[in-house]
């Protein structure tokens, strides 16, 4: 169902939210957030803890239903669409806790993602050998992220950084239009951060990336556009130079500096 003729006249803004709001039993986690994510851009969502970044992620990917507001993906209204359907339309997310299938092999993790688009997901009468035709593509994806040496290992046995890399490889298997990464660098060592930064930069060339990230060095280095959130609202938006000069942003970050 994902439109294929989009490449010709790709709209600049691929994902947009207007007046996004979500209440949790009287507590307003997100109130009136406007957000535009553009093709070819790496867009960061930053802000102190509890600012509502992950809630925004959950709203955009439909894991949570917004109390009010409107979300558009590639020109389609997805405000009331199911999360699985949104994923099939090309908006694929990662999670704060690395989202892999720990007891499947690295190769199988990627093949599970490839199964659905190739129509191999509901065939309960065929043997697992039917999945062999997905192996070349899966290996290619693993090679592109440098995980080909680990193809037969259990995903759960990988180091933390490599789990995140595997997660990105799995996500890329779906060739998403918009990639949402929830703290992709959290808990990573320096080398892993560099690897994943390079990976994100290369995958963002022909898609849009929105990421929640706490490491401001990474954000400054990687992201074209930054939205700063505080207490469920957008505090500021712009490129790194603009945002880092903003007085309100400074105050917001100073206020949480001891955390």
């Amino acid at each position, binding site marked *: 169902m994902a439109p294929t003729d989009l490449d010709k006249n790709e709209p600049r803004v691929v994902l947009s939210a207007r007046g996004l709001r979500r209440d949790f039993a009287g507590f307003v986690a997100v109130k009136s957030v406007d957000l535009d994510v553009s093709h070819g851009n790496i867009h960061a969502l930053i802000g102190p803890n509890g600012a509502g970044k992950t809630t925004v992620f959950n709203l955009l990917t439909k894991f949570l239903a917004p109390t009010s507001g409107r979300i558009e993906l590639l020109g389609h209204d997805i405000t009331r669409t199911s999360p*699985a359907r949104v994923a099939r339309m090309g908006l694929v997310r990662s999670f704060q806790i690395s989202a*892999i299938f720990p007891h499947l092999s690295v190769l199988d993790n990627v093949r599970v993602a490839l199964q659905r688009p190739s129509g191999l997901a509901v065939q309960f009468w065929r043997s697992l050998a039917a*999945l062999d035709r997905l192996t070349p593509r899966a290996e290619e994806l693993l090679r592109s992220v440098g995980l080909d040496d*680990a193809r037969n290992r259990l995903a759960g046995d990988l180091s933390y950084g490599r789990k995140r890399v595997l997660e990105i490889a799995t996500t890329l298997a779906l060739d998403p239009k918009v990639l949402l990464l929830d703290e992709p660098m959290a808990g990573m060592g320096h080398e892993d951060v560099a690897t994943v930064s390079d990976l994100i930069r290369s995958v963002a060339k022909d898609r849009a990336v929105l990421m929640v990230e706490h490491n401001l060095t990474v954000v400054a280095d990687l992201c074209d556009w930054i939205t700063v959130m505080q207490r469920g609202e957008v505090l500021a938006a712009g490129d790194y130079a603009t945002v880092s000069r903003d007085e309100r942003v400074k105050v917001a970050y100073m206020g949480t500096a001891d955390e």
Partner: protein
Amino acid sequence: MSEGTSDMVELTLRETQAKTSARLEWTLVGLGILALLVAPFLVYPIFLMKMLCFALFACAFNLLLGYTGLLSFGHATFFGGAAYFTAHAVKVWGWPPEAGILLGVAGAALLGLVMGFFAIRRQGIYFAMITLALSQMFFFFCVQSPFTEGEDGIQGVPRGMLVGVLDLNRSLNMYYFVLAVFLIGVFAIWRIVNSPFGMILRSIRENENRAISLGYSVANYKLGAFVMSAALAGLAGSLKAIVFQFATLTDVTWQMSGEVILMTLLGGIGTMVGPIIGASLVIGLENTLATSGFPVSIATGLIFMVCVLIFRRGIVGEFYARLLKRVGKD
């Protein structure tokens, strides 16, 4: 460098473990089939057939609990419901046994579709409670509906001629037919578990949110597994109706739903052989105790407690775990 070496060791260890368990499984399967082929000459066939029916029932249940991660407390509906459908079709409408069994399977699948539709969106205890509530509703339907003949049940169901040639009234013919259906049923479950669809079920069990974010409508996959499990449980129930020539309320009670949970847990959930062993043990025990006067439910209750306290993986699960540990040490 050192990490790479340890990777290699770990990898070969896992391969050895996988090979060992695969070899063991095939050896067990071969021996098991052989034993079942000669068994009716050594053991009372009607007991064996009862065992096989319940073993298939437990395997079908395990498809849902062990391989999809859903605990249904209403599987008696499919087992007992299918028994009623088959018994009615064969006795009242005069259908041949194979058609009666197919009707039972189809009916169980339909019941599974309805129950699954209502239960599948809930998780854990809520899922179990909805299946229990719906199966209780079905139980009362069976109590009230005239076609089940109430407390008496449908009795005197003729076994008939299988596809018009094989006389099922002869005990050995009946036995080998039951064995064939049992093997086909278990093979079907094995095939479903080890299929592209089974792979998606596994990934949903491992990380449901990730499966959703990869575009899988997980509710549909769970519903698919639920219907398949219901249909196979129905196959076991239909078979039982033909073997024992009756269908009664006992098979649709909640106790029957509990019994299949017990059999599966006792044998080992998520293993192919476990439910078969579990069912054989429970049925064997019931048969032995039936003549002794000792209350069966106390015995099975005690065994269940021992199982939960001491070998939580079930008999087969615990056996595998020990074996793999020993292979790991060598």
